[in-house]
């Protein structure tokens, strides 16, 4: 009995590391050695309760017991309190699975994140990994495509296009080479689900991409990862090597006649690469200038070949669908938004983190019940949903349900499921200015409305903020916004007016400024 080491989990997720998880892991190792205890330290992903990071878990006979947030200086006292057998301590939170935050969730995509050792293929398999791929290998490509269609899965990158229909187009295309591209350029502020998945359960994304490859007849795939995620990059490089060594991908996928060669490629700090056509240009080695559609990437994508381009979360949903059946997935959700959505709660919020739930929970439940309100303790004033191109909502609008159509009906968007909370110290005119400034910096420059409109937008906002001819300049702002919405080539220029106009329409008092006094003296 005593020979069996106690399993202690200390997250290796970048957010947990950002608040000291590495020092905690080292302290745990030091203390265990000093006390002659046999422990196995597992570096897991984060359970998503980021305000409790670093959260340490101990495996006991009754289940995993969580302690957090643990600082390195707490570790000696934890050992003293017998935490290796779940002992009482001020930082003891209880059984992880029974914490309110965990109990309420419906984790399908994130079912293993925080539970397994992300690099261990054995652990992945022991927790249901590969089952979706094994089932897919017994089907024809067309049957896989039909299953994905029947699940109702829509692209989780923001646009919400039905994944199965995209796959069908690539499946039906005739070409000697097809590609699978995973859009991991998670550049939206307030989103971190892709990163957490790569750091907490990377084989899942590889499995989903491999199923896509079998479905459409592709033999090569790329994960295009943003360079701001060095931790995820390191994990992915190791994971792909291990997946190849295990025969999961490579010349023969799990012993079948399917070949699938996968590479990870790093972006270079350009937000526009989250747009699928500019991502393809970047993968081809060019300036990431948006392409006009048509032709659809499904028909003429990477290097002109039929290409499936999906978000990380879209691929990651597929193994569960294949394993449990399309209907089981479709049974979650509301309206035309089927399945679950990994929701990311950030900004000025007391309990921020990742929540996976079926579509339909309200914003208020997420922010107030799960999030506990603002971190500053001041009233919520604005909430931005769906990234930098998403609308700002007021505290009165938070009863909207998380659903593609419900948000669109109020001129907002779900995007990639990111929620950013602001308290009453926010200046919404400055946020509107920032939206244009961001667009000006990150525009690819191909189309005039976006390239020049964004710069004109900054100038107009500067005049409004200075109180110069406010009504006239607001008219200019609305006109410019309409032009950018209607005439931009892609969502970057087309959606930048969404945060701007929502700020103007919902918070007009911040735009109604008296002329700035001339600088004193």
């Amino acid at each position, binding site marked *: 009995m005593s020979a069996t080491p106690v399993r202690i989990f200390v997250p290796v997720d*970048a*957010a947990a*590391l*950002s*608040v000291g998880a590495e020092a905690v892991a080292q302290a745990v190792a030091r203390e265990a050695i000093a006390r002659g205890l046999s422990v196995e330290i597992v570096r897991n992903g984060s359970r998503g309760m*980021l*305000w409790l*990071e670093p959260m340490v878990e101990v495996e006991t006979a009754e289940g995993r017991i969580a302690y957090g947030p643990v600082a390195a200086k707490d570790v000696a006292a934890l050992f003293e309190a017998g935490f290796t057998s779940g002992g009482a301590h001020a930082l003891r939170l209880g059984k992880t699975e029974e914490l309110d935050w965990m109990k309420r969730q419906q984790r399908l995509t994130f079912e293993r994140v925080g539970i397994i050792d992300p690099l261990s293929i054995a652990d992945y398999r022991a927790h249901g990994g590969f089952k979706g791929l094994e089932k897919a290998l017994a089907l024809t490509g067309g049957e896989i495509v039909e299953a994905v269609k029947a699940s109702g899965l829509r692209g989780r990158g923001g646009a919400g296009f039905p994944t199965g229909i995209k796959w069908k187009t690539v499946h039906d295309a005739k070409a000697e080479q097809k590609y699978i591209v995973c859009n991991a350029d*998670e*550049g*939206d*502020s*307030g*989103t*971190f689900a*892709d*990163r957490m998945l790569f750091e907490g359960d990377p084989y899942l994304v590889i499995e989903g991409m491999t199923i896509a490859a079998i479905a459409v007849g592709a033999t*090569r795939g790329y994960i295009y990862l943003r*360079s*701001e*995620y*060095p*931790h995820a990059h390191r994990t992915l490089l190791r994971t792909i090597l291990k997946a190849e060594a295990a025969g999961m991908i490579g010349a023969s996928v799990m012993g079948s006649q399917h070949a699938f060669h996968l*590479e990870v*490629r*790093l*972006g*270079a*700090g*350009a*937000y526009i690469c989250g747009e699928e056509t500019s991502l393809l240009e*970047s*993968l*081809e*080695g*060019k*300036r*990431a200038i948006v392409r006009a559609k048509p032709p659809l990437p499904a028909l003429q994508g990477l*290097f002109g070949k039929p290409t499936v381009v999906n978000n990380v979360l879209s691929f990651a949903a597929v193994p569960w669908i294949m394993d449990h059946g399309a209907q089981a997935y479709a049974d979650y959700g509301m309206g035309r938004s089927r399945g679950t959505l990994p929701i*990311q*709660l*950030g*900004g*000025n*919020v007391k309990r*921020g*983190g990742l929540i996976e739930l079926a579509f339909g929970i309200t914003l208020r439940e997420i922010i107030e019940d799960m999030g506990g309100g603002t*971190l500053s303790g001041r009233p919520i004033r604005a909430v*931005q949903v769906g990234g*930098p191109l998403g609308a700002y909502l007021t505290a009165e609008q938070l009863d909207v349900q998380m659903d593609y159509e419900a948000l669109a009906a109020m001129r907002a968007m779900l995007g990639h499921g*990111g929620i*950013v*909370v*602001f*308290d009453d110290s*926010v200046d919404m005119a400055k*946020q509107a200015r*920032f939206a244009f400034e*961001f667009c000006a910096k*990150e525009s690819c420059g191909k189309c005039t409305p976006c390239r020049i409109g964004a710069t004109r937008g900054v100038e107009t906002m500067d005049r409004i903020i200075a109180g110069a001819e406010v009504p006239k300049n607001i008219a200019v702002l609305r006109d410019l916004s309409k032009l950018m919405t209607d005439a931009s080539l892609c969502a970057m220029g087309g959606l930048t007016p969404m945060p701007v106009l929502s700020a103007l329409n919902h918070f007009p008092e911040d735009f109604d400024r008296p002329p700035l006094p001339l600088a004193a003296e």
Partner: protein
Amino acid sequence: MAAYPAWDQDSARMIVAGLAHLEGATLPILHALQDEFGYVDPQAVPLIAEVLNLSRAEVHGAISFYHDFKTTPQPRRTIKLCRAEACQALGCETVVDELSRTHGIAVDSHHAGDAAVETVYCLGNCALGPSALVDGELIGRVDAARIAGLCQHGRAQ
């Protein structure tokens, strides 16, 4: 922390040759050069153009498009400070102001010294901001004093 060797055209050539077989090799090559030398010297342009059978304009165009690629030697340490919305909600602009006012560090201005602070938009740490990325490590809940301290790293006391 990172101390880069001076640009060396021969080792640059070897790096380029080693990656030229990749599909769409331009970005992997530029990353590899920058990892090695801390920047991509303009001398790399004809080298890459020749090996990949591209025009010099195409190679230069790629280098100049992406925020990551630098064409001049960089300070020993670059601190990437997130100034996207989630970090704004947690006061990153106050950090920028305080860095300038109290510590004399202007974000995004070229530094002659051995450290620089530059803006990035989102590091994926939106629940624990303000955030910074330093030598490949993410730091949460940062303030101006901590960043100023990180800028001092490696300097003569």
